[in-house]
Every structure is written in structure tokens, then in C-alpha cells.
């Protein structure tokens, strides 16, 4: 346990020195603040709580940005250290490979959690400072959105490690990571939409839609946040999909947890068999 903590702390320290922490926090804070003030302008005050609008905006932002940041910090974690020769030295120490992976994971997750908490927290604080009334349910939705954003980050950190454990060199890992980001963030939903439109409900029944949505972690995240409250789901325009989807919060969180655990386990298995 001590070994894992040592590695996590080293990873965080490197993140601070490399300015990964400050860069990702600044990026998220800037985008969140922009969405908060520009995004709420067109809606004005139309029933929906101001924070609910922001939860919807930030959830959409998370889907694009958080997986990208997570893949950027994780895709190099194994193959990069192998290429630079630092991994052979590390593994000559009394530490197991799964401990190396878990230590890095905790470090990277801490960096991501810090960036998300501060970045989004600044936006919420700024909104509260403008004096708008915000209900308790909205705060809850905001807290859920922030926490699940970190969880979505964990999913893509784990996927990044799997890519890193499989790749022969750093260049391949970067290419595959970008491909995975495009697949889950853009292509999958477009393909699914195309399928539904073309199919006209003949083969793809509403019951089949649920597993198809769980197959993409960003969709699980989207459902989890955009159906949060009745107000949010009406503001997000997702009510149609959500009524058809029978997935509860619990199964969605479980899906995200599984999307973290499975790539981690696969990465640990492949890494443990890899010869250096």
C-alpha cells in the first residue's frame, strides 16, 4: 500500500511540475466560466434553475474534454516509461507491476479530480456570486455531475493504460488514443443514430437500446446526468430518450465502474506479461 502511495505522490508531483495540473484546471475553468455566462444568456430566466442549465452545459463539455485530458495523461504511462528506460529501473525495485499501474492511476485520477473540482467549482461559485437563487436539488445535480465527470475521467485513464500496455511505441499509443476518443465521443453516437433512423424500429427495439448505450461510457455518463431531475431532462432535450431507457442511476454508475475496472485489469494483465 505504501508503494502505491509513493508512486501516486510522485505522479502528482510530476503533474504539478509538468504543468499538467495547472493547464487542465485552467482549461476546464475557462470553458466552464464561458459556458456559465455566455450559455445562460440565451435561455434567460425561463423556469429552469440557472444551475440546472449549467449542469447540462458542463455535462456536454465533460464528454468532449475530460476523456481527452484523461487519454493525454495516461496513454504514455507505460510505453513512454519503457521507451525512456525508466521502467526497467522502477521494476528492479521491490514493487509489483500491478502496484505500479495502480499507483499511477491514483496519481492521475487525483490530478483529474483536482482539475474538475476546481474548474467546475469556480463556475458554480461565480454563478452563486451573481445572486441567483439555486435550489438544493440543483446543487445535488451539480455535485453528481462533477463526481461522475471524475468517474468518466477514471474510465478514460484506464483505457489509456490499456492502450499504453498494448502499444509498441509512443507514436502508436497516441494515434490509438485519439482514435478511441473520436470513436466514443463522436462516431459511436452518430453511427447509433444512423442505425436507429435507418432501422425505423424494425430490429432495434427499445430494449436493445439500453445495452447499446452502456457500450459507450460517454453515453452512460450522459444519461446519468441529463436525466438527473425532471427539470434537467426537459432542459437537456433528452426526455424522449430517457423515457425509453429503463436504466437507473445505479446501473449507469455500475457501468462506468465496470468501464474503469475492466480496462485496468486488462492493462495489468498485459503489462505483467510484457517483457522489457
Amino acid at each position: 500500500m505504501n508503494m502505491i502511495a509513493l508512486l501516486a505522490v510522485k505522479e502528482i508531483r510530476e503533474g504539478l511540475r509538468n504543468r499538467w495540473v495547472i493547464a487542465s484546471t485552467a482549461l476546464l475553468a475557462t470553458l466552464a466560466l464561458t459556458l456559465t455566462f455566455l450559455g445562460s444568456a440565451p435561455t434567460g430566466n425561463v423556469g429552469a434553475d440557472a444551475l440546472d442549465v449549467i449542469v447540462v452545459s458542463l455535462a456536454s463539455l465533460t464528454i468532449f474534454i475530460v476523456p481527452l485530458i484523461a487519454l493525454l495523461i495516461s496513454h504514455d504511462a507505460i510505453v513512454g516509461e519503457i521507451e525512456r528506460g525508466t521502467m526497467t529501473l522502477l521494476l528492479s525495485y521491490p514493487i509489483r507491476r500491478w502496484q505500479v499501474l495502480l499507483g499511477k492511476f491514483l496519481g492521475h485520477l487525483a490530478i483529474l479530480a483536482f482539475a474538475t473540482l476546481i474548474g467546475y467549482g469556480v463556475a458554480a461559485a461565480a454563478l452563486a456570486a451573481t445572486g441567483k437563487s439555486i435550489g438544493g436539488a440543483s446543487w445535488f445535480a451539480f455535485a453528481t455531475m462533477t463526481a461522475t465527470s471524475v468517474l468518466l475521467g477514471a474510465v478514460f485513464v484506464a483505457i489509456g493504460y490499456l492502450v499504453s500496455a498494448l502499444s509498441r511505441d509512443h507514436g502508436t499509443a497516441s494515434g490509438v488514443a485519439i482514435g478511441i476518443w473520436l470513436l466514443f465521443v463522436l462516431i459511436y453516437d452518430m453511427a447509433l443514430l444512423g442505425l436507429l433512423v435507418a432501422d425505423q424500429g424494425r430490429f432495434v427495439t427499445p430494449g436493445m437500446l439500453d445495452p447499446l448505450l452502456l457500450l459507450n461510457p460517454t453515453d452512460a455518463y450522459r444519461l446519468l446526468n441529463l436525466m438527473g431531475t425532471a427539470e434537467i431532462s426537459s432542459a437537456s432535450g433528452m426526455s424522449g430518450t430517457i423515457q425509453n431507457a429503463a436504466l437507473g442511476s445505479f446501473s449507469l454508475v455500475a457501468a462506468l465502474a465496470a468501464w474503469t475496472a475492466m480496462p485496468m485489469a486488462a492493462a495489468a494483465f498485459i503489462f505483467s506479461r510484457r517483457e522489457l
Partner: protein
Amino acid sequence: MIRNVQLNSVAKHFGRVKALDDVSFEVGEGETVALVGHNGAGKTTLIKLMLGLSRPTSGSVAVLGQDPSAGNPAVRRRLGYLPENVSFNPVLTGREMLRFYVGLKSESRRSVDGLLDRVGLTHAADRRIGTYSKGMRQRLGLAQALIGTPRVLLLDEPTTGLDPELRQQFYRIVREMRDAGTTIILSSHALNELEGNATRVIILNEGKKIADGSLEELRRIARLPTVIRMRAADGGVQRIRDWMGNRPDLRQVNGHTIELDASPEGKVAFLRRAAGAEAPFDDVDMVPPGLDELYAHFLGGRPSA
């Protein structure tokens, strides 16, 4: 003698490439063994097997009595390793890096200062590693290898890129460790710097062990000639030939220089004659057999004699 490292007909294949083929040796406490060979001879592969970072295709490896790939933490704590071209994260300071490694070996944080002092890095301890010279990085690499007084030290090309003064310092530390009973296995290209530092030399070529013994033993077994190079003034070369009795093995290098391969006894006989006043050359050089000649010999064909 306690055998800290044992290799028993170890082979390692990468696809069709036989990186190591039937290599066996044992290294005891307080021995310094040099693994010598050209690039690709299998030195690094051998060290990685001893570290347990890869497994042999056949045969067995034991370090401190255990299979290193089992990763027993108690064994790893007593093992020091310096990789070839050691690298560290450039954004951390030397002290931070060393603290991290000390923590991994569950040693006291207080040992960091002593280690930094031992390799002469105290003045740069709080600077980022990115600002270090190659020699400083190598010294930091040695410092981490010395954590916890290891019983086995594996040093891969430890002196490449070090200037002569640092090499001296480096070998002084190696001798101190050896005298304290540590088993040291180091790989090297340069045979000349091993003189007096390595108790044994193992020559590897294309994954096979082709020689194993002290440097003196290897030289004696090889019976390699020393090249004697004589220089004369204009027209003096013919006088040297006459003086040498027109031996057929004299080689003309250019108009002023002539060469001769001499066995150890031949060399002594030559020196006795050359001390006389009638020796007809202006200058003489003696070139002892180098690493290349030793390789060539142990590969089966004598070089040029």
C-alpha cells in the same frame, strides 16, 4: 563461497534470434565480474534476466538463491541496478528522485544525504535533473543503485559517457562495495578500464559465452602478440630489416615505419637487443593486445599473425 548469482544453461530467444544460448556461470560474494562483448552480444539481455524483467526461454537463473522473476521483495531490496543510459524524470530534483527510490526500498529517508555525498552530488541535490550533465545523471544512477547496501549490484555499461576522473571515482566506489562483500556484475565495452577492477571477465559473443577467467588468464590463454612498431630516419628501414635478420614476418607500414608481432617471450628478447647501442631505429612503440584482438582470438581465428 556464497554463490549470489547462478546461471544454468540459460537461453533467451526473441523469435528466431538467439539473444543468449547456453550461458552458465556463477558469481560469488565479493567478486566483480565484467561481462564484455560488442553491442548485441547479449550483455543487457543477461542483466535483464538476472533482474527478473524477462524470463529465460530455457535454463534457470537464481539471484540470492531465488528465481528473480518471482519478484520476491526481500530479494529485490538487496539488489542494486544501474541501467545503461539511465534516465530520470527531468522535472524532479535529484533529492526528490532519490527519496522516491529510498522509499521503494523501505529504507530510511535519512540515508539520502549520505548517498548524495558518496557520489558527490550534494551541491546539486536540489536542482532539477533536467539541468544535470550526463556524468551527474550517471552518478545519481549509481546513488540509487547503492540504496540499502545491496548484496548484488548489476551495472549495465556504467562508465560510458563518464570522463576519466569520474571513472576513477566510480571504480573507487565499486571497489569499496566489493570489499564489503557485494557481488558486482558490470557490462563493458572497454577492457582496459577493467584492469585491477574486475576479478573475472566473461566474454560474450552473439549470445554465447566464449571465455571466462581473470584478465591475466585470458591474455595467457590467448597468447596474443604485442605489436612492436619501429621508426627510422630516411633509408633506415632497410637497416632495421638487416638488424632483425630479414625475418619474413616484418611488415612495412610506410617509408619510415616497420612492424613486428611478438609473443611474450619474443617481446622480452627483443627488448634486450633493443637496449644495445647498435639498435638502428629512432623510436619504438609497443602495442599490447586490446579487446578486439582478444575477441578475435576467442572467436576462433587469430587476427593477423
